[in-house]
């Protein structure tokens, strides 16, 4: 990960933010899986994806930050149960946040 990547903190855990641009266009396009057996791996996944998912909800769907964060968390939670049938985690999460944010916007209209 580049040293220029912005860094924030979640609780006491450092988090690296991926911009949604990077998330959507390639640099994370290699299929990844969700290994719920390894806590370390899981922490890394939460850290890696939470910010990017929130950012998509905020930037592309203009959801308020609180709602975007809650949706991103729900998407990651849903991924845990579906882990065995997710072939490509990044693509799955991207689809899930898009679908969730679209539904949220639909509810408002």
């Amino acid at each position: 990960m580049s040293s220029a990547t912005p860094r924030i903190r979640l609780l006491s855990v450092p988090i690296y933010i991926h911009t949604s641009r990077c998330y959507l266009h390639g640099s994370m396009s290699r299929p990844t899986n969700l290994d719920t057996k390894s806590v370390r791996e899981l922490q890394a996944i939460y850290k890696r994806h939470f910010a990017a998912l929130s950012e998509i909800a905020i930037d592309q769907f203009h959801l308020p930050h609180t709602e975007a964060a809650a949706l991103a968390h729900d998407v990651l939670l849903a991924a845990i149960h579906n882990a065995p049938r997710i072939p490509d985690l990044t693509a799955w999460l991207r689809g899930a946040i898009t679908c969730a944010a679209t539904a949220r916007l639909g509810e408002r209209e």
Partner: protein
Amino acid sequence: MTDEDREPASLVSRTRVYEFFATAEKLSHERSSAPHTVPPLLHSHRSNLAALRNHPDLENCGALEYLGILANENLNSNPQYALSLAKLAADMSETLPEGAYPQITLAQVRAHTWKDYGKALRYLARCPEALEALHHAESCLSGRFASLGHDTAIVRFNTAVVLQELNRCSESLTILADCKRTFREFGDTRLFVLAAYTEGVGLQRLGKFREARETYLLLLSSTTDIEKETLASLHQSIGHCCVDLGDYEAAEANLQKAIQLHYDLGQPLQALKGEMGRGRLFLQTGDYQRVVSHLRPVRRDFLRKSMSEEAGLCGLSIVQALLLLERTPEAENLARKIVHEFVTAQLSTRAVTALAYLAEAISNREATPSLANEVREYVLSLRATPEREFEHSATTE
């Protein structure tokens, strides 16, 4: 400082972050334990699985998910057992304690157990009940959790399959179009391919053979990775469409390819169904002698595997060919044999009545080759509409 000024990560409470890791750990533990705890329980309660309903070792998501895996594995070989497993899981999912998992996880577990139950009911041709189970599965997800789009699409895909069995193909196609979009969005290539294939099957059932073939060919030519099993089914379906479209060369090539793939995959039954398709092809091309010589061993193989219905369908194509060859006594003899096989296998009484009608008509020298085909189509249709009555259209040839 407003929420909009804060980083999203700081807007998720410590409790919810803890919930994520706790759920992951819990599910991971349950998933690794289930293969050790569930099979012995099933073995000791094999004669009465329902008695396991309140067993504490099954009162967790991992165990219920494992029951679902076992149910799916048994769908082909022992659908009744698959149904018992799926029913147990669905019932137990309703009594999982509310606070034991996050609401989202509970909704997912319930939806998937009910989906598996619906699927098992479909395998037993109990389609109206299957539809009810799937609607219940969808209701577990709908409206409450925007993040469960993929789960919803999986349930709805199963609903679309049942709707086709119920001859509600247009509704099915509408649902499949949505499912395909969702599966593509979630990068789920396997289910995308299956949904697209099922779309082709729906079109084929509607008699739109050209559109169905286009759908299959589009899928074949896409860059998508297609599992060998689906590939075999695709070639088989293209073959059948080509028979109906009169494109016999392509039909033969695709059916041969499907048969070879099925043999490579160790699926001799599917390969036999491909051979049955070739029998229909020879019938269409007027090669009646070949129909008889080709389908007789296929029929014998079905009988050897106790697949009386498939053997009967095969036999009816032979009867049709024999009538076309004016070998009436042989046709009558075979028709009576098929009636006997259906009665012995306790298949649909409606099918037996139609077959007996055909045998009598041949005996009275009143049967036309098209009557044999009509009876064949009728027996096939009973899979989707078991209550349908046989109505002979009395066409002449």
